[in-house]
């Protein structure tokens, strides 16, 4: 099962886990990316996420399909939040189930690492004294 979603609403972690649970799988590995209160010691007020939605969904589906193909996992859910996020909010949830836990961990890590490299999603960090598009400049 592959479930990929981009949502303007808060992510529901329990739903992601329930969708991914499988009685043939003994383990679920989950990664939740949350908004930190600081970047390089500077206080973060909020993050603003935007995406190129059609392409982002396509890239997320590729990651999910590759994770299934490469790791032998059975189910993967990738949900990413859009819009304005505050400290502690979940930006991304990735849940992976597999008969064996090694594959679930490998695939979960592969998915978040690759998402950060290839999926057209951008975040702007808003500080007290300005804002910056993350990674835009060297």
């Amino acid at each position: 099962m592959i479930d990929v979603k981009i949502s303007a609403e808060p992510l529901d972690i329990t739903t992601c886990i329930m969708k991914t649970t499988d009685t043939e799988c003994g383990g679920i590995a989950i990664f939740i990316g949350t908004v930190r209160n600081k970047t390089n010691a500077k206080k973060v007020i909020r993050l603003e996420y935007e995406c190129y939605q059609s392409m982002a969904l396509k890239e997320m589906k590729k990651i999910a399909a590759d994770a299934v193909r490469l790791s032998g996992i059975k189910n993967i859910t990738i949900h990413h939040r859009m819009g304005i996020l505050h400290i502690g909010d979940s930006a991304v949830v990735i849940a992976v189930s597999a008969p064996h836990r090694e594959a679930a961990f490998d695939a979960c890590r592969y998915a978040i690492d690759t998402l950060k490299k290839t999926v057209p999603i951008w975040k702007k960090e808003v500080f007290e004294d300005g804002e910056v598009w993350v990674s835009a400049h060297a």
Partner: protein
Amino acid sequence: MKTTILTFGIAKEIFNGASKEMNLKDGITVAELKNSLEAAYPEMKKLHSYLIAVNNEYAEDDLVLDSADEIAIIPPVSGG
């Protein structure tokens, strides 16, 4: 050919809008498009890197663009 370029993130700010009508020469490649963009918007050269997506796929420099293509500027991504 006349085409619309989609922009996101910092590119949207550099282009001052989420999409930009542009007149491009017929048979232009991705590499040539990048040169045109950088000539018209020098701020683009200051980015860490950026890619061009054509029809929702990252495009190689030698790809020839068509007026029916959906073309987008992809500045460094920062999801997650």
